[in-house]
């Protein structure tokens, strides 16, 4: 069996780093990025972490701290982050064709068979991503994905590593595993961690040396895999073919509570319209639609409900999608509730060229397709796109991104300006 080598490449403080690329004066300044609606902290610069800003903390709770230390605060700019993520992945794919995009800011690379020094190669990856995209990354290298995660974690914390650590065949592997608390091991959830700690397993090294049959009886086959992975036996290969999309979801939090059916309908109509665009981009059609509405989870009079409808003929016509979504809202809306969020999930997706036709279909499908293509074509060209009337005009329910930076890689009118 040829020996596997995996590298986990992970962008440091990804959202904050993206902001810094286009605003270099933020370098070395405490900076945080907030979630939708400027709710919670979702990214922190190292300086902000040092000030004690926690991950996921509601912004209002730390308003004083942020002000006192003059922390730079940004609304999330997902358009920018997605574009920068694409650039990082594109850069990484020049180093090996075997790449698994694990999340917006992480990728596994398979480096098996590379004869050069892996640490040097990792360093080169780090330097190239930094130069091409401006983003700092950490590279952890090891013989399994689980160990690569650990290598990455140590590389991030250790000043000597300078962001690159090769644990493959390293004499320090035992030492490294001793540093890692068992709950930090990839694949070990909170519950398993509690169980393990009770049984006396505190570190990754303890877990590695655990008795396999005991692990199997307590944690099943996935637990066994994790132990094997810690022993350097590869159980998880790269997943390089992301499964075809099984559903498309568009849902957003409202900027403020929504109490009328009219506003709820406007919102769901614009999500339906967005979902239709997504469908058509992927040349898919949906045969089923689920709409859900919910109030805040934290209030007494809580209400969550969902409604699913099926289309006789799978469709990606926005008019049909909006029509269906509005029917759903009619059956979901209850007076007296303060809605916080609604969303639409399109399921039962089929290729738009392979839609099962119906004998009794009353819609001219080819005409519908041409209309949708025309709308999409117009919308890609106009700064002020065409909207469906049901979406309404002012969108008072929409989330406000008060402190969002410019979308300088995807909008002509928001490009970076340089004097």
């Amino acid at each position: 069996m040829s020996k596997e080598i995996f590298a986990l490449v992970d962008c440091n403080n990804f959202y904050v780093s993206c902001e810094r690329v286009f605003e270099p004066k933020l370098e070395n300044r405490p900076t945080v990025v907030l979630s939708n609606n400027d709710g919670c902290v979702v990214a922190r610069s190292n300086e902000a972490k040092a000030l004690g800003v926690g991950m996921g903390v509601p912004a209002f709770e730390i308003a004083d701290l942020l002000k006192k230390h003059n922390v730079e605060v940004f609304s999330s700019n997902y358009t920018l982050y997605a574009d920068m993520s694409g650039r990082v992945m594109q850069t990484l794919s020049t180093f090996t064709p075997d790449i698994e995009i694990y999340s917006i800011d992480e990728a596994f690379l398979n480096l098996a068979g590379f004869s050069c020094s892996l640490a040097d190669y990792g360093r080169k990856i780090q330097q190239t991503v930094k130069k091409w995209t401006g983003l700092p990354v950490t590279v952890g290298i090891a013989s399994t994905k689980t160990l690569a995660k650990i290598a990455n974690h140590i590389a991030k914390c250790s000043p000597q590593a300078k962001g690159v650590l090769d644990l493959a065949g390293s004499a320090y592997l035992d030492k490294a595993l001793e540093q890692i608390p068992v709950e930090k091991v990839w694949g070990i959830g909170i519950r398993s961690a509690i169980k393990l700690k009770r049984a006396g397993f505190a570190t990754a090294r303890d877990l590695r040396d655990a008795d396999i049959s005991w692990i199997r009886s307590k944690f099943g086959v996935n637990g066994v895999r994790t132990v094997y992975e810690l022993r350097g036996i590869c159980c998880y290969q790269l997943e390089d073919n992301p499964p075809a999309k099984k559903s498309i979801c568009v849902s957003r939090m409202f900027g403020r509570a929504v109490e009328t059916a009219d506003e709820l309908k406007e919102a769901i109509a614009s999500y339906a319209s967005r979902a239709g665009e997504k469908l058509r981009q992927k040349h898919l059609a949906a045969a089923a639609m689920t709409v859900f509405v919910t109030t805040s989870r934290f209030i007494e009079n809580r209400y969550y409900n969902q409604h699913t409808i099926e289309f006789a003929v799978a469709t990606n016509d926005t008019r049909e999608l909006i029509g269906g979504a509005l029917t759903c809202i009619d059956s979901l809306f209850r007076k007296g509730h303060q809605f916080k969020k609604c969303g639409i999930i399109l399921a039962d997706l089929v290729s738009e060229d392979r839609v099962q036709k119906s004998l009794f279909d009353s819609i001219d499908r080819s005409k519908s397709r041409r209309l949708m293509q025309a709308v999409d074509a117009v919308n890609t060209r106009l700064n002020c796109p065409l909207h469906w009337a049901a979406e309404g005009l002012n969108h008072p329910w929409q989330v406000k991104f008060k402190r969002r930076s410019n979308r300088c890689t995807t909008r002509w009118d928001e490009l970076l300006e340089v004097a």
Partner: protein
Amino acid sequence: MKCKVDIVYSPDMSTKRKQPLFEARVPAGFPSPAADYEEDKLDLNRHLIKNPAATFFVRVAGDSMEGAGIHHGDLLVVDRSLETRDKNVVIAVINGELTVKRIRIKKNKITLEPENANYSAHQITEDAEFEVWGVVTNVIHQL
């Protein structure tokens, strides 16, 4: 790898535009003499952008580089992956501010030169925070 799409915008798959390489119809067996010479369309993206992952568009503000044909409001194509050479026009970061200038590298001395007599050159001192952000490869100027 397909590389027809410019980097700044995601590929637009919303419409289908079929572009056969051979357009000429052959009704009676005589092929068009031009058909053999038909080539793919010229693609400005491919011409201007060698490395999409590292290429960014930047808008010019101000007139300090007019001598280099870079005017207020122009669009710069910036490739971060290129190594900086003497006389390159670059986007540089000085003390946290972005600027477009011509870079001069002589031995240990780096100078950023404007191309407009109303501005003066800026020599990079050792204590300055300085970095080349990217190399400008093209100017797009609307007439």
